[in-house]
């Protein structure tokens, strides 16, 4: 499978702390995306980073991409209880579709 693998599988932090999740993948990619999924809901697109980019920001989110290590990280700064969710990375291989990892379950304790 070409899916990314997120690490850690589960993460629990206090509100106000930063949360970092990592994603590793197996082959060269064109794009990598991060998604959030609240319990019982569909996935919500957070950010897309292209293979020629090293870092992107969106509000409290910071995504990095290291193509030499085939890895990406998602940093959520100043976390809130509302950030409690599962986070998935998705990598494209064949140009028309993304493969998803198994996700990191983040719990932010108020």
């Amino acid at each position: 499978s070409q899916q990314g693998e997120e690490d850690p599988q589960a993460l629990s932090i206090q509100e106000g702390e930063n949360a970092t999740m990592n994603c590793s993948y197996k082959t060269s990619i064109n794009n990598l995306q991060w998604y959030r999924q609240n319990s019982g809901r569909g996935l919500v697109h957070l950010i897309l980073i292209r293979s020629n980019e090293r870092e992107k920001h969106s509000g409290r989110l910071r995504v990095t991409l290291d193509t030499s290590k085939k890895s990406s990280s998602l940093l959520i700064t100043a976390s809130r209880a509302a950030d409690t969710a599962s986070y998935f990375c998705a990598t494209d291989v064949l140009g028309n579709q993304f493969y998803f990892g198994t996700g990191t379950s983040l719990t932010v304790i108020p």
Partner: protein
Amino acid sequence: DAGITQSPRHKVTETGTPVTLRCHQTENHRYMYWYRQDPGHGLRLIHYSYGVKDTDKGEVSDGYSVSRSKTEDFLLTLESATSSQTSVYFCAISAQGARDGYTFGSGTRLTVV
């Protein structure tokens, strides 16, 4: 989610019966996808469409078929449901395929008994 709806939201069916799930979009996006989500497996692609009547298989397509006769609708059919197809099914749409973010529907929870 805005612009994409899945129906039904929940369904219980018996082994061996055919089941059709519907994904409807109002965004006029070219690409549509069906994923299934199972514990420990994340989301796995079943089939996708890159235009009307243009479809292709994903990594877990066995036992599933799809049809797209018009831009707004993408149907997923389980020809003869099995218990291993108990899952949550998500539809997603995209304007530019993998160069773009996906918009996901709210999912269909299917139970095969």
